[in-house]
């Protein structure tokens, strides 16, 4: 079958298996063929991290059971294919929330571990891996192992943020947090330019429960970096009732020309003006704040059949002002039709050898796949490098092996664990081959690029 990332720019013809029980996983690991195996969860990573062109893919969606929950501590054990949406539907009415929520609730817990995802509260609580107590996994040789950070520190750090390359995650134990209600008080304010934005984000990073900035990436000149800052707190005097939102869905691919600099900048201007000049405060359902885009099913179709790229990087605090400015200047002058960009602060390094976060400012930009966009992504990546930053692998499309190894200084530790648990290279992905994650020897002469247009 043909699989794609959420951006629909990377495609791969794969041999897929969809286990419905744990013992099926061992059977799949028993024969991974010549091109290895990677786990594919909900398919919400943008690029090629969960693809394995011409190889095997294990779809984890049917491994979706919650196995234990302790009301006293909030500790939960669940299978790797459980989604955040299910966890929220089940536990929010009981006053518990996932400690870290990625931008979409349709991601799986396994994917959250493998990409060590972060949310709008990273400064205060870290990334998902920071809340993992232990997990069970099938190593590439089929051995079942329970991993916790104390007894297996190396394997733990290689698996959290490890891009699925250390084996197949089966169950994950982590701690949920208690929340006083299912509703949030969201404060929104207009920010006129980038400097003001960075100041505002830094000012709230330690105090707000959640904070996120939405930037008009087409604004330039004096209004470069203008946008809306949202900060949010859980309300204490609201009910815990949770009703799944009514969702609309994009029924088909929009034609490629729909998103052009004019329509996008009109939308962005509207989005900016929506918030009154003096700002506003309102109450919102927690899931509506945490996952705004989940209200529109299959929103990736608005970019048309050719798909889109998402670029996300983090730049360390001291270089952030300069670095983010350069990135935005390039993005806005390219007129590449980037929709709302997201600006957030991150609090510190994750627990994984390949965890994305570092203390700094992170910027995410969408670009419809057009001629010249990959070159643009290369330029953004180079600027990120220059400012000591890092590109998020769950979204990356253009990183080179050299850039990757410089951005991720703990790569050698990661490789050492891989050599140990997967000497034959049974776990592979298009990303691992593209970035030579396992080392120089990984490159496969027959490998083609998965960054191509969908098969007709």
């Amino acid at each position, binding site marked *: 079958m043909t699989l794609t990332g959420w951006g629909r720019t990377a495609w791969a013809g794969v041999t897929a298996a969809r286990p419905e029980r*744990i013992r099926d996983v061992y059977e799949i690991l028993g024969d991974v063929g010549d091109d290895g195996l990677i786990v594919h969860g909900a398919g919400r990573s943008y690029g090629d991290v969960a693809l394995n062109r011409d190889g095997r893919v294990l779809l984890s969606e049917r491994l979706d059971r*919650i196995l234990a929950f302790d009301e006293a501590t909030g500790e939960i054990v669940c299978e790797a294919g459980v989604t955040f949406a299910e966890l929220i539907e089940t536990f929010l009415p009981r006053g518990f929330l996932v400690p870290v929520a990625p931008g979409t609730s349709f991601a799986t817990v396994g994917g959250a571990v493998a990409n060590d995802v972060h949310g709008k509260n990273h400064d205060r609580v870290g990334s998902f891996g920071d809340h993992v107590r232990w997990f069970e996994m099938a190593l590439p040789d089929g051995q079942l192992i329970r991993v916790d950070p104390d007894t297996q520190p190396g394997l733990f750090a290689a698996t959290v943020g490890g891009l699925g390359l250390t084996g197949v995650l089966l169950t994950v134990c982590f701690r949920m947090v208690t929340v006083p209600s299912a509703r949030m008080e969201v404060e929104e304010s207009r920010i006129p330019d980038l400097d003001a934005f960075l100041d505002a984000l830094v000012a709230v990073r330690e105090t707000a429960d959640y904070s996120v900035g939405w930037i008009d990436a087409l604004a330039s000149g004096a209004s470069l970096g203008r946008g809306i800052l949202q900060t949010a707190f859980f309300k204490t005097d609201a009910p815990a009732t949770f009703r799944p939102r009514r969702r609309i869905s994009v029924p088909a691919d929009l034609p490629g020309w729909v998103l052009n600099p004019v329509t996008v900048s009109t939308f962005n201007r509207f989005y900016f003006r929506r918030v009154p000049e003096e700002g506003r405060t309102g109450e919102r359902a927690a899931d509506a704040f945490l996952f705004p885009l989940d209200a529109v099913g299959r929103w990736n179709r608005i970019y048309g059949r050719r798909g889109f790229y998402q670029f996300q990087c983090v730049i360390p605090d001291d270089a952030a002002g300069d670095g983010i400015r350069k990135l935005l200047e390039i993005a806005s002058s390219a007129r590449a039709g980037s929709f709302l960009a997201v600006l957030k602060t991150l609090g510190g390094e994750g627990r994984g050898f390949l965890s994305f976060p570092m203390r700094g400012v992170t910027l995410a930009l969408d670009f419809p796949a057009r001629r010249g966009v990959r070159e643009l992504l290369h330029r953004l990546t180079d600027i990120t490098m220059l400012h000591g930053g890092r590109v998020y692998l769950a979204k990356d499309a253009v990183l080179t092996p050299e850039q990757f190894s410089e951005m991720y200084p703990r790569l050698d530790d990661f490789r050492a664990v891989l050599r140990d648990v997967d000497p034959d290279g049974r776990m592979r992905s298009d990303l691992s081959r593209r970035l030579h994650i396992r080392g120089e020897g990984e490159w496969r002469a027959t490998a083609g690029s998965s960054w191509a247009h969908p098969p007709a």
Partner: protein
Amino acid sequence: MAGDCWLILGASSSIARAFARAVAERGDRVLLAGRDQDDLARTAADLGIRYGVECEILEFDALAFDRHADFAALVEARAFGSLNVFLAFGTMVDQSQIDRSPSLARLVLDTNLGGAISILSHLAPVMEAQGKGRIVVIGSVAGDRGRRANHVYGAAKAGLHAYCQGLRARLFRSGVTLTTIKPGFVDTSMTWGLPGLFLVASPAACARACLRHADRGAGVRYVPAFWWGIMTTIRLIPEPLFKRLSI
């Protein structure tokens, strides 16, 4: 203890798992029966945490005919409230594999037909004594007409259909309903990777339809419903023509 209790036979299958969620969501108690106890324990834990229902697991093997009587007695003892049965076990062996090793035919017949008839025959008196309750049996459109591509499986499901017709008439007299569900293409491990599928239903949608039909005490239902049209057409094709077709 009041309320409904569902015995789910073959509870590791995806339709059965979805059905268990559907009944647990409305608060019914669940008895999960099957061979893979570790897997059933996981499903039981999931139902308990998500829906707060009591859930028990029982060892059941469709081929262990000599233990079916004891199993039925155990179910009678464990079922609190009103017992209902959802029979979802079955095995589909590729016809070409059976053609190569004909002894596999017996496995298909024993599981899908013999095992089902045996356990239903043992459970029928329990249901009759209760004087109410629902039985849902997962049949197959394959039983509507013997096709070259899977006629052993089809024969088993056709036999099961006939058995259920008779059992339905028997149980009707004591207020128990039996609903035969004939799923078309449902996205399960049985259909996974098969070529030529269309309008595939999710296990959850199939399970909801099963429950809806069971609640109404329906007799035979296709799920999704349009399969009635497809299968009626296929049944009407004259045999001299049908044998030449590669349907």
